[in-house]
C-alpha cells in the first residue's frame, strides 16, 4: 500500500457528487422521513470506507487462497468479532432502550447451495455484494455488467426461492436464543480467535512475516482520511461504525441484495412482465416494497448511498473511472459471475454482508454455514479462472 502514489482529486466529479448527495438527502427527507435521509448518508459513509480502505471479501479470499496472504481475511475476522461484540447485546435485548433484529435465515440445502454459487460468482464476477456496489461507484465499467446480471440473478432466485426453502433444513437457529447472548458471544469470539490464529500461522509459515493491517504512510492524518488510502484497520473501524448506525436507525443490520431482486422485479413489471405467480413478492415486506417507491426501501437507498459514496471517494483519490479495455473473457465471467452472485444470494438469504457479516454478528447459525459454503465456492471460482486462462496457476507468479 505504501507504493501507491497520490493522484489529483477530480474536482468536477467531486462537486457533482456532493450536489447529488445533498439533493437526494433533501428529497428523501421531504418525501419520506429524516431516517431515510440518514440511512442514505450512512450508505455514502460505507461507500467511502470501502473504497478508501479497499475493503473487499473477494480479494481477501483470493489473496489467501493463491498466495497465503491473510491480511484481508484477518481484517474480515476482526470486523466479524467487533460487530458481534456490538450486536449481540442489542439483539439479546440487554439494553432495553435499543431494539435490533437478527438477520436470521434457515440452515439447510438452500443456504449451502446458494452460498457455494455465490462464492464461485464472487471470483468470476470480480466482486461480492459490497464489492460490486463500490467498484461500480468507483467507475469500473466491467462491474456494471456484473451488477446488471447480479440483479437478473437475484430476480430469478426470488422466483425459485419457495421451492429451494422447501428442501431439507433445520430452520432458523439463533445462537443468542439457544445459549444466551453472553455465552454465545464468548463462544463465537473463541472460534473467531482460533480462525485468526490459524490464518496468521499459515501466512507466517509461507512468508516468514505478516502483512500489516495498519501500514504507515508518510502523509498527514487528515490528508489520508479525506483522500485515502486507508489502512485496512481503519476500514474495519469504519464498517463497524456505519453498521452500528444502520442497526440503530433501521433496526436491522446492513444488507444489500434484497434491493437487487426488488429492482429486477420492478423493471420486469415496468416492461409488462407478469409476476402474479411469483410467490415471494405476493406477501409481507417484499410485496409492500414492490408496491412502494424504490426510495422507500431502506436497502435500496443505502445501496444508492454506497455507490455515490464510493464515487466521491474515488474522485477524492483521483482514481474515478479508470480506462480499461473490456476483453471477451471478462465480459463472459462478468455475466456468469453476476448471475451466480444474484441467484446464490437469494437462495442463501443474503450475500457476504446480509448473510455472512449480518448473520454471524447477530448470532444466526446460517451465517457460519454461509461462510463454509461460500469460501468453498470461492476456491472453485479461483480455479475456474485459472482454467479459463484468466489467472496464472497457483504457485506461479500471481496475475
Amino acid at each position: 500500500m505504501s507504493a501507491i502514489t497520490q493522484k489529483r482529486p477530480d474536482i468536477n466529479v467531486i462537486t457533482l457528487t456532493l450536489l447529488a448527495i445533498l439533493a437526494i438527502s433533501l428529497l428523501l427527507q421531504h418525501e419520506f422521513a429524516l431516517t431515510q435521509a440518514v440511512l442514505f448518508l450512512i450508505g455514502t459513509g460505507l461507500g467511502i470506507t470501502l473504497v478508501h480502505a479497499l475493503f473487499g471479501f473477494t480479494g481477501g479470499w483470493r489473496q489467501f487462497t493463491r498466495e497465503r496472504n491473510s491480511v484481508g481475511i484477518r481484517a474480515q475476522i476482526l470486523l466479524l468479532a467487533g460487530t458481534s461484540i456490538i450486536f449481540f447485546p442489542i439483539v439479546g435485548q440487554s439494553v432495553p432502550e435499543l431494539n435490533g433484529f437478527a438477520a436470521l435465515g434457515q440452515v439447510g440445502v438452500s443456504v449451502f447451495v446458494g452460498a457455494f454459487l455465490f462464492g464461485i460468482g464472487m471470483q468470476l464476477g470480480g466482486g461480492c455484494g459490497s464489492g460490486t456496489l463500490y467498484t461500480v461507484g468507483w467507475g469500473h465499467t466491467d462491474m456494471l455488467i456484473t451488477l446488471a446480471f447480479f440483479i437478473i440473478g437475484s430476480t430469478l432466485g426470488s422466483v425459485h426461492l419457495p421451492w429451494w426453502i422447501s428442501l431439507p433444513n433445520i430452520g432458523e437457529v439463533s445462537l443468542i436464543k439457544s445459549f444466551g447472548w453472553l455465552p454465545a458471544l464468548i463462544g463465537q469470539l473463541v472460534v473467531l480467535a482460533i480462525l485468526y490464529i490459524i490464518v496468521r500461522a499459515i501466512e507466517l509459515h509461507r512468508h516468514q512475516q505478516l502483512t500489516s493491517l495498519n501500514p504507515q504512510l508518510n502523509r498527514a492524518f487528515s490528508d489520508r482520511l479525506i483522500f485515502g488510502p486507508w489502512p485496512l484497520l481503519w476500514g474495519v473501524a469504519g464498517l463497524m461504525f456505519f453498521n452500528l448506525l444502520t442497526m440503530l436507525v433501521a433496526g436491522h443490520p446492513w444488507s444489500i441484495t434484497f434491493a437487487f431482486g426488488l429492482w429486477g422485479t420492478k423493471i420486469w413489471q415496468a416492461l409488462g412482465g407478469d409476476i402474479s405467480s411469483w410467490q415471494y413478492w405476493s406477501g409481507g415486506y417484499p410485496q409492500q416494497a414492490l408496491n412502494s417507491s424504490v426510495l422507500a426501501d431502506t436497502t435500496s437507498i443505502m445501496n444508492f448511498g454506497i455507490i455515490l459514496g464510493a464515487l466521491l471517494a474515488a474522485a477524492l483519490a483521483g482514481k474515478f473511472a479508470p480506462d480499461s479495455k473490456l476483453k471477451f473473457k471478462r465480459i463472459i465471467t462478468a455475466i456468469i459471475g453476476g448471475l451466480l452472485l444474484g441467484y446464490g444470494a437469494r437462495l442463501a438469504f443474503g450475500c457476504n454482508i446480509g448473510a455472512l457479516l449480518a448473520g454471524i454478528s447477530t448470532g444466526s447459525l446460517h451465517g457460519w454455514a454461509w461462510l463454509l459454503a461460500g469460501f468453498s465456492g470461492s476456491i472453485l471460482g479461483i480455479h475456474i479462472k485459472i482454467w479459463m486462462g484468466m489467472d496464472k496457476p497457483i504457485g506461479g507468479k500471481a496475475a
Partner: protein
Amino acid sequence: MKSKLIMGSALSIAAIAVAIDHTKHQAPEPQPAQNQQDLIIIEGEDTGMQESGVPCGLSVPPCSL
C-alpha cells in the same frame, strides 16, 4: 474519458428509472381534513410502518436480506 462517459450514462439512466418509479408510486394527495378532530385522529393512528418497514422480522421466511 470513455469510462467516465459510460459511468455518467449509466448513472443518468438509473436516476431517470428511480424518478419514474417514485412518481408512479407516489402516495395520493391526502384529503383536506374536515376539522381539527379528524386531523388529531389521523396523526394518532399507528400506521404499523415501524414493524412492517423492516425486512427482518417477517413472520414468513426468508428474512429478505
